[in-house]
């Protein structure tokens, strides 16, 4: 099964990249592979290169990659409930990477943990350090995760559906916090999400994934205002928009996303595509530029 198949992308300092797609499109797997967090076996990175600050992460030794994980690159997961250790205090968990990567003594690490909690706007951070995860609300747990990620001044933060389990007002608070932090520290941010609104609000550039491949990439402006792949166009037409006044009918994409163990031949989207031609059923399109930095993988000219 190819969860991610020939995906290439880049992200620069101070920039936010949105990785959009539905469940099972490979967006999380591609992010996990940046940190070589794909369990092997059964998973395997079958090829490719991942350059971070000029080094190929796939060629690093286990020890070297561990010096990158949680240090130069931090990851924030969807479920703050399951990614925090329930039997360790919040302070202990934020201090751990500081002890490992920055050789701080426990006392110094806890002192820094307190500062970090304050930075992610948790009130009374000194007392809160001694709390266990269950004493935190969902939004606070996710803040603690962000504090943990920020500890070693990473250059890249990968946020995998960071706010999906949270209420919309909490989601807005957290994303704003992440955005401001990346701006203030000049970090790069990769947001993985299925929420087109979140990407529109925060991402500079967008990669749209379908069935393990990037089908379209470009600046947020290009992707939203001039989508060039039928899947992207379909997604935009199928979501209701808060600011739409007319009660116009949504245009759904027919069928359902494919199972990655059984991806259709040719272009994986062709069984659901209204513009598909014979060639789409046989040959897999590659990403090609359609002007500027805008690329798409499609055989059909969808421009009206």
């Amino acid at each position, binding site marked *: 099964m190819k969860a991610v198949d020939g995906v290439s992308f880049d992200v620069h300092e101070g920039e936010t990249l949105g990785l959009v797609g*539905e469940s099972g499109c490979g967006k999380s797997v591609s992010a996990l592979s940046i940190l070589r967090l794909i369990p092997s076996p059964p998973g395997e990175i079958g090829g490719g290169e991942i350059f971070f600050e000029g080094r190929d992460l796939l060629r690093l030794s286990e020890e070297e990659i561990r010096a990158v994980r949680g240090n130069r690159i931090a990851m924030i997961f969807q479920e703050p409930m399951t990614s925090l250790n329930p039997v360790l205090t919040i302070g202990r968990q934020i201090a751990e990477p500081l002890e490992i990567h920055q050789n701080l003594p426990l006392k110094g690490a806890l002192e820094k943990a307190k500062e970090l909690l304050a930075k992610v706007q948790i009130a009374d951070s000194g007392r809160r350090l001694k709390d266990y995860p269950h004493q935190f609300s969902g939004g606070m747990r996710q803040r603690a995760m962000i504090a943990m990620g920020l500890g070693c001044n990473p250059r890249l933060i990968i946020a995998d559906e960071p706010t999906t389990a949270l*209420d919309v*007002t909490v989601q807005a608070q957290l994303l704003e916090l992440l955005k401001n932090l990346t701006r203030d520290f000049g970090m790069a941010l990769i947001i993985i999400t*299925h929420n*087109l609104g979140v990407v529109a609000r925060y991402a500079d550039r967008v990669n749209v994934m379908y069935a393990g491949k990037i089908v379209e990439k470009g600046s947020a*402006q290009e992707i939203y205002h001039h989508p060039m792949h039928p899947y992207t166009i379909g997604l935009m037409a199928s*979501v209701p928009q*808060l600011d739409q006044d007319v009660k116009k009918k949504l*245009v759904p994409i027919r069928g359902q996303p494919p199972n990655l163990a059984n991806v259709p031949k040719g272009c994986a989207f062709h069984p659901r595509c209204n513009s598909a031609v014979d060639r789409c059923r046989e040959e897999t399109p590659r990403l090609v530029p359609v002007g500027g930095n805008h690329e798409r993988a499609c055989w059909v000219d969808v421009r009206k």
Partner: protein
Amino acid sequence: MMSESENNTLIEVQELKVYFPVSMGNILKRKIGDIKAVDGISFYIRRGETLGLVGETGSGKTTTGNAILQLEPPTGGKIFFEGEDITGIGKKEIRKLRRRMQMIFQDPFSSLDPRMKVADIIGEPIVIHKMARSGADYREQIADLLRVVGLEPSMGDRYPHEFSGGQRQRIGVARALAVRPSFIVCDEPVSALDVSIQAQIINLLEELQERFHLTYLFIAHDLAVVRHISDRIAVMYLGELVEIASRMELYHNPLHPYTRALLSAVPIPNPTVEARRQPIFLKGEVPSALNPPPGCRFHPRCESAKAECTLQAARMTEVSPGHFVTCHRS
């Protein structure tokens, strides 16, 4: 308070309260308080319309739906269905009521019995309510229901695990329609589905409403979806109703500070629009429903709270025709 005298009203809820007692201690259990999941809310739903009910986790929106369906006994208040008081009716009457009101659940994976064939799942309510004249009639009804929700009649012989999330939700819709109800509570019917599938189910619900003159209470946290499908929208916060208005009025003229914050927090999939918007960030977190703040429950997080708000709860008032808000400031 808000009764509409015409028989245009299908559901009327008056001062509904649903409390859950909380006790402490293992041997000598003593009650230490109540979780006020729903605390004195009033609204009506007109025949053939969709009322959207939005609010965040713990706001009481699901409990409200359950109370209307008599799945949760109210602690106080009254619920009228077609003008008839259905609060605290007996088991037999509840069963009869189920023919007229149904529900569609959030999770199409856990709400269908994995050991039953789809035809039996859809047919169960028909059997319970003795709605089939013969075996042939029963099979015909099931085939019809499958067709109505966009599935093949032959799919009735399969089991739920053979279907995708979107198809399972269609099965859930068919089961709700089986008894030909007039009212359906849709509790987060699309939030478990993939983005490209959500529109299929939303469109289906809209088509069915028109075809069978259904009335919906549409409960969801996704405001964009709610605004799309609803005629009117009610906003809940911590067990209370803070605002009700038509979908247009609520979006263009939100009056409650919580409604404003909620609307501004929803990102719009358009980077140009987003660049111009400034979200309102609420301070703090939602307080516990076991020990809600005195006065207006929203006051600790409200930018425009004044002394009065900390002392006394506001009453819901109609500020313009059909637009109700619970706030001292309006």
